[in-house]
């Protein structure tokens, strides 16, 4: 019988993000102080360490020491993240605007893709936005139908770990902690590059010209 720790190690070494949504048991296990160190110790043998982001909402495996090979991996990984930012941000905004309640997608938000589909089909602006999102390389759709584009986007996002589909028979998706990670990345870039994104948005709202 495999232990809880073994199961968590397997997930971490498999490159998964562990959050309250994707694996609640594992997440609670890692919350306890002694367990965090124990898992970290195990990972040390493989030059990995247990890392956490978004105020402890997600756990993942990081490199412990960085040699040239590791840097190369991280470098390509970062390029992928950077290239994926724009489509993901646009997608998050689309969901937020089409949901009607103007609440941003956060960990645990439920998204009903069939409701979303109806809203998007009824609103030409959303339709255009979705078509633009689906054409990004991250999704790479060449479908012209809303259904096809949506299905592909949801499928890709589930593969990438941003969404979870608890019941394969239902069109209901739940946002995982990786969405929080995405916000964290945005915040980090905002601060490091001194973009002052919030201020830009605010002044644009004040001028009434936003999007």
């Amino acid at each position, binding site marked *: 019988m495999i232990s809880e720790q073994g199961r968590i190690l397997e997930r971490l070494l498999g490159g998964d993000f562990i959050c309250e949504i994707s694996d609640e048991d594992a997440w609670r296990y890692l919350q306890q102080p002694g367990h965090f160190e124990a898992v970290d110790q195990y990972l040390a043998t493989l030059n990995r360490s247990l*890392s956490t982001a978004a105020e402890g909402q997600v756990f993942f495996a990081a490199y412990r020491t960085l040699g040239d090979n590791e840097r190369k991996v991280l470098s390509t990984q970062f390029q992928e993240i950077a290239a994926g930012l724009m489509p993901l941000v646009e997608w998050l905004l689309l969901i937020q605007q089409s949901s009607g309640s103007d609440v941003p997608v956060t960990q645990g938000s439920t998204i009903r893709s069939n409701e979303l589909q109806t809203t998007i089909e009824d609103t030409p602006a959303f339709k255009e936005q979705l078509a633009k999102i689906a054409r990004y390389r991250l999704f790479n759709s060449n479908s012209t139908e809303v259904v096809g584009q949506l299905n592909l986007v949801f499928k890709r996002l589930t593969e990438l770990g941003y969404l979870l589909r608890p019941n394969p028979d239902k069109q209901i998706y739940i946002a995982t902690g990786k969405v929080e990670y995405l916000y964290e990345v945005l*915040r980090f870039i905002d601060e490091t590059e001194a973009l002052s994104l919030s201020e830009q948005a605010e002044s644009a709202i004040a001028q009434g010209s936003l999007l």
Partner: protein
Amino acid sequence: MSQSLHQAGVKLLNALSRNADLIMQVYLSGSLHEAEATPGVVENLKKLGILWRPEPGAPLRLKKAIRTLLEGSLHDERNRQIDANIGSALASLKTLAQHYKEALHHHRYAEGQAHLNDLTEHVYALTESLGNNVRVLFSRINNEFGYVASIDAKIRENELAQNQVSELLSQLELFRFDELSDVAGSNRELRHLLVVALQQSFSRCTQELSIAQSRLLELLGRFREFRGRTRLLKGFVLHMEQQPDFMPANYANHSQVPLLFNQARPLLQPAAVDVNRVDHEAELLELVGRIKALHRADKPRDEQRAAQSIDVEQQGQVELDDQAIHQAVESYFCEIIDTGKRLTALEYLGQQQLEFDPEVWIYQVIGGYQGLNDEERQYFELATEIEDHPIFDGNKIVRDVELGLR
């Protein structure tokens, strides 16, 4: 007097019930569409004080008292007003208490009773309005200001609610129970109303208000967080629109890689099967069984089974593959003709070192002889070397045949 008041009240309530549809329409839409209503009815309602015209030319509206009644009974969340005028209510309570005490002092019991009834009404009205105010606040908190769409509007609503809470709290400070207790003196009824009933509702209200306040702060925090995120997203999109070639520096090349971007590559590959483990035997067997089933289902494309076009044509003569033995028989016959000597079939088989089975060979020679037409057969003579079967008599065994010219 009371009889006529009773009649007037019944008349008013009847008017309300008779025109329920109209009144609800006014309640929901805010004002009356006069074109759709009968002028007589509207006039009647105006006279009874149910509808009124705020200023000349403005549409008819519902009186505040009726509105409040409906809002209170229907738990309508559009009711966002908080009646916080506790100071004046308390002052009137004190005055009424003084009236009551004075009446008792002068032994005017009937008048005193009337004042006490009045006072009871006021006290309960005050406790009810406190309870209502808190309920209104909570209903708004509980659906998270769902009646407005945007986050900014929610934040404004939240701030309004917070103001109302602090207003209510400062009004509640006007309760001075030592003063009330002095006013009540030793009178049992007054003490019950002014001290016990008010204090109970006061403590319940303050408790609930403090909960409401903390919930409001919590909600405000969440809304601000939402707003922050929305701005972050929109700001990013705006930034990318202004500078489409923006690319953040590759932090992985920094000497100190930020923890956020330090993500190890997936390492684990699926483990291999250990066929020597006895305790896995059942599972492995099951797997193997499934492989078979899978194999059958997933048959490779069979060219011969696949549909093919068939050319329907005259079937060619079937030719058996006995050319070699036929030719050998023919050349045996030719040998006889050439040499003119008698020669047995087996001898010829031995001479030519043919590789046929002797029995088959003999059969073929006999067949070849009988296959000749009568004219040709006359030239040959076939003698058989026959012996009896050792056990089953009557049966003959052909050992050899000898062919010669006649």
